[in-house]
């Protein structure tokens, strides 16, 4: 046990040191075999399965008092679950938290990778619902483990091929499977395929925690991550005809916002920190009006 106990008398970052050691062992193994799913004895956390218990356990195992934590859900720091997880660590670990991607040493995320490039001194922790990329092709764990062991990924290629045969393109837009280090097919968690290229050769360490399924996997810095495709049907990311209504960005993942019940819409960066930063630097989108946007004004 560390000496550091929070006011609530829980151990630093909630988990006991033995559990953290168990998770760290799984993490080390995961880093040593990029893309391989390491079973770990996931604990029941004080939030429900499906709310990010895997990511929370990984964060709890790697966080230190000197860390600065950022938590995003769907790209935003202000979605309710991101707020809840950030408060959990602010309370149990007493670490400083931030909205700024650049200021964070540890970022826990659900369904997005920040737009800003991450650095070597940062760690990105993903919350993962279904870690097995082959699960929807083969529901049995005993079978999928064998398929990974034998590098038998034909089924996945057949699925992608069938998509092309039927629709003319691959009909997967998020949780788009990747090949890691030329060896393991991996589920990138339900990030949009827009974010897949950011995983490749990333300077930051990427850790993945699936609490309910009790699996951990990892991408060490500068790992080769290739989205599955075919020579004649190369992988492409989503593109929008619109730009961000607030900051005018034309190269970010945009969320569609419904403005009324007669079909008026606008598009806004899903990465709220990136959008705010651009606006602070004077960038304006078409729907931003005259008043400069500040989170405080919006509150």
């Amino acid at each position, binding site marked *: 046990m560390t000496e550091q106990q929070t006011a609530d008398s829980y151990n630093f970052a909630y988990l006991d040191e033995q559990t953290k050691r168990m998770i760290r062992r799984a993490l080390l193994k995961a880093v040593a075999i990029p893309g391989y799913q390491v079973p770990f004895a996931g604990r029941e956390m004080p939030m429900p399965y499906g709310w990010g218990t895997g990511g929370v356990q990984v964060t709890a195992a790697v966080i230190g008092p000197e860390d600065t934590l950022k938590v995003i859900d769907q790209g935003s720091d202000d979605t309710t679950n991101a707020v809840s997880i950030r*408060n959990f660590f602010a309370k149990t670990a007493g670490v400083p938290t931030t909205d700024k991607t650049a200021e964070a040493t540890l970022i826990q995320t659900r369904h997005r990778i920040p737009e800003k490039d991450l650095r070597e001194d940062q760690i990105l922790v993903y919350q993962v619902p279904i870690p097995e990329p082959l699960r929807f092709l083969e529901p049995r764990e005993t079978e999928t483990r064998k398929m990974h062991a034998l590098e038998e990924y034909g089924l996945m290629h057949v699925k992608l091929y069938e998509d092309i045969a039927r629709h003319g393109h691959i009909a997967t837009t998020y949780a788009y499977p990747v090949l890691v280090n030329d060896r393991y097919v991996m589920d990138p968690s339900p990030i949009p395929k827009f974010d897949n290229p950011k995983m490749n050769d990333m300077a930051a360490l990427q850790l993945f925690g699936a609490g309910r399924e009790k699996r951990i996997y990892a991408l060490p810095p500068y790992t080769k991550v290739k989205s599955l495709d075919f020579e004649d049907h190369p992988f492409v990311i989503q593109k929008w005809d619109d730009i961000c209504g607030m900051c005018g960005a034309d190269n970010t993942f945009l969320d569609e916002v419904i403005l009324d019940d007669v079909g008026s819409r606008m598009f806004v960066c899903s990465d709220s920190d990136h959008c705010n930063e651009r606006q602070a630097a004077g960038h304006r989108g078409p729907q931003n009006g005259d008043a400069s946007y500040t989170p405080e004004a919006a509150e």
Partner: protein
Amino acid sequence: MYVAVKGGERAIENAHKLLAEYRRGDQNVPELDIRQIEEQMSLAVSRVMTEGSLYDKELAALAIKQARGDLIEAIFLMRAYRTTLPRFGYSAPIETSKMQISRRISATYKDLPGGQVLGPTFDYTHRLLDFTLAANGESEITTDEADTRLDQNMPRVLDDLLRHEGLIQPEERPENEELETVGDLTREPLEYPANRDIRLQNLARGDEGFILSLGYSTQRGYARNHAFVGEIRYGEVAVELIPEELGFAIDIGDIEITECENVNQFKGSKSAPPQFTRGYGLTFGQNERKVIAMALVDRALRDKELGEEIIAPAQDEEFVLSHSDNIEATGFVEHIKLPHYVDFQSELELVRKMRRETTEKQAAQQAAE
């Protein structure tokens, strides 16, 4: 005008306040006491302790109160608390043959050594609403003491009675039992194929409704194994711990449990002769529905051991064990109410694109015709 989503923190805080108010209900009505729940909702307490896999009536009662009577939420509270507790050891196996019996029945014999002891059961009540309870008009309840004491020798039906004839499947003690400790699925990840110790743990923690339905499915022909209740016993057993520094067992307290052993007709397979096979169920407190269903499912899952063909969900280890835990299930089922707009945005783009392509194709076809 679009306003960025902000203020989640305050919204959460207010939601929690409102939840507390709803939990309390009309404040002119007296507040429930934990002891009242413990004493008067004892079967809810049993279930929460079993599926929460923590034997503590007071905490279970607290969890039920805090969860507004939602038992799965209460089970979740127990689990989340349990996982923070240190382990100071594993108990010696409990001896259910030495149980202080409150109830013991067998469906396979009319009478048997030790007798049929009905105990507290709903079995023969007529399900008529008792309006005296509604009026809180219950008079003092007294029960008569029996003329004869319960037989101290209360043999277990399957092990002590049926075994004489050699007709029942023997429960083999593993040769290396001393070395091979019983698995603990709260400390190790569940891996397949699982052994029976892990399977039974999983079923004991598993959702009562799920186990009930699976057990029921075996009776309706999905892996039928025609079962009878060999014995149900409910009562108190001592829990013993053997501290390393002492080297002998010390009694650390009594727990109430319900135990069920089923006997199943078995016509034999390539690898096993015709015999009666068995299924086992155990819960904390009193819960006969769960133990009987659990014993049915346990038996169904022994298919490999008995060389049976796997034809039904209840026999399918991965299917049963992966989906029995109601805390995992409720979490994942309910999580789809969390924001998914990034994924949905991606789907929107895709569906629009696919519709556009279909329309274009149709238009091209029509133009060609």
